[in-house]
């Protein structure tokens, strides 16, 4: 790990989460550096979403800790994670269809005029800021005043990601951002993730799509049945190896070889 001299912006140390009898996460550790995209992969029920929820403060770990920029944070809720500079975009988007792009971007943190001006929402300032954020990330939306229901899936996902960027987070967590998108829209979202990376943010992305992972991730963390079974770097793995590690089809020797590769990677 000599190549990474600065401390990781996000570090997960020996985190375990149990739901009754189910060990959703067992002793998982990982780290993410600024300007890096880390993909979390694994079969259904491997614990990917649970790990993201733990980092974003929705799920409390039973053991282990989360460090942001080298300092341990006990996150009691999503507000704590947001305050620490972590924003999450959930699988199911969380946009309001009847609100327009600007309203969705600023929902819950509207800019309002003072009471002696009637506490009106300051639409002009929000519109300005929204256009800045959208153009910074090269998201193209023809009319920021039409309801989100008339945006394409890719645009909606982009708006959801831009919404997380408004708070200027250091770490962005994305739970399956390209699921249910067509080819062109998937490209849009992947390009957007590249831009987040170029802005120096750390990105953690859950994906089931090996092609996307190969294209976008600098590192890949493989979870299986709640344990981290492998961690590989860009170019240091093949598609088949990754699938084998995810499904457990890899035998112990091959896994050791993969791990060795990782150590050298």
């Amino acid at each position, binding site marked *: 790990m000599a190549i990474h001299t600065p401390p990781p912006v996000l570090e997960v140390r020996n985190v375990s989460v149990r739901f009754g009898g189910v060990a959703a996460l067992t002793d998982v550790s990982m780290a993410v550096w600024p300007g890096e995209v880390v993909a979390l992969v694994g079969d259904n029920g491997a614990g990917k979403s649970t790990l993201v929820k733990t980092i974003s403060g929705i799920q409390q770990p039973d053991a282990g800790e989360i460090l942001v920029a080298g300092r341990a944070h006990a996150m009691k809720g999503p507000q704590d994670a947001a305050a620490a500079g972590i924003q999450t975009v959930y699988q199911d988007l*969380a946009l*309001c269809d*009847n609100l327009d792009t600007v*309203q969705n971007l600023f929902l*819950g*943190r509207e800019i309002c005029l003072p009471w002696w001006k009637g506490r009106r929402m300051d639409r002009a300032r929000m519109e300005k800021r929204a256009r800045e954020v959208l153009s910074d990330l090269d998201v*193209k939306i023809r009319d920021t005043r039409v309801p989100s229901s008339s945006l394409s899936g890719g645009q909606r996902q982009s708006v959801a990601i831009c919404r997380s960027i408004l708070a200027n987070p250091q770490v962005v967590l994305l739970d399956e951002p390209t699921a249910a998108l067509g080819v062109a829209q998937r490209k*849009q979202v992947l390009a957007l993730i590249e831009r987040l990376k170029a802005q120096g943010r750390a990105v953690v992305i859950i994906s089931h799509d090996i092609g996307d992972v190969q294209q976008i991730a600098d590192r890949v963390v493989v979870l299986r049945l709640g344990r981290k079974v492998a961690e590989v770097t860009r170019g240091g793995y093949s598609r088949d190896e990754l699938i084998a590690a995810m499904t457990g089809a890899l035998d112990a020797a091959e896994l050791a070889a993969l791990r060795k590769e990782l150590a050298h990677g």
Partner: protein
Amino acid sequence: MADLSSDPKALSGRTGFSRMNRHDLMTALATRWRMVPVLIALALIWTYFSWANPLFISPRNLSNLSLQIVVTAIVALGLMFVLVVGEIDLSVAASGAVSAAISAGLAVNAGVDIGIAILVGLGVGAGIGALQGVIVTWFRAPAFIVTLGMSLILQGILLDLLPEGTNLISLVGTPLGKVATLYLSPGMGIALLVAMTALYGFLSWQSWRANHQQALGGSLLREVLLPTAAIAIAGAAAVAVFNAYRGVPGLVAFLLVLLAAFSYVTTQTRFGLYLYAVGANAEAARRAGISVPLVRIAAFTLTGLFAALGGMIAAGRVLGVSPDSADTTLLLEAIAAAVIGGVSLFGGRGSVWAALIGALVIGSVSNGMLLINASTQTRLEVQGAILTLAVVLDALLSRRGGAR
């Protein structure tokens, strides 16, 4: 790296152009132009009745018609709040009657100051609404049944409140009994119109100027001058008609001021936005840090408050509170008015003006049918058909709006 501009669909939808346009049209109909089909329907109704009986468009009849719709419009305005957050309140008629009975009882029988009696009544209505809101949000009980149950309870309470024997609190000769007979002088009517137009013009000019300061552009003509002129012209026509009879009815003026105030609340304030956000996607609103239970309870409270207001005005118009005050016709007409005006039963859509326009449609049909001596069955059939059409339109537009 993938370039967005290489994706033709992201830009202008060159592919499937006509389909995109149709989708845009449906979206516009569901939002900005939602009133257009309703206004067309209203124009057709008015044209027909004016042709069938010219008395329909006489200043006297139009003035009476506008007085007849005040109660329905106010209760529909209240219902709009629960409907927008995706709930319903079936107790509005009963809670309005109970509130009116309490106010009337205090003022007439207990000799309490009329102002205080009205405030107590309004408080009772708001309290009933809040209680229902708490039950619905905390116990996650379906509003449909909770408010239906509450309606039955309130009808019972109404009978308890009314004096035994007569079963009537009379408002003859009391200040409450005179509300329906108040008219603004011609000068006051014009002053009200000027004030409201100026206020609208000022607020839209402020928005336009803020957009300019942020270099966002926008046309002064389209965003400020034309809408303000439209309001001035429509308002002038209405005031002219009213002044040709006895002047603007006090209750109608009150209704318009109320609608304007809550139009501001729903479109310009954070609270208003949260109502729509909660109605469309409560989970998204919750994740955005909005207190969804609080917004829902506030919506129920406003519904209760307006139900009480409507109940009192209804009592004032019929000069008393009786068991009939809780008649479900008001409930049905108010829900119909809101839906006809474009408030979605699926939550998240509808403006306060829906209450006015919807009540006008319902009221015009009732009034016109009487003028042309149509039978009750014909009136019910026509009103039912209009409501069904409105609901079908709502379902159609909602499906389109939520298609993606």
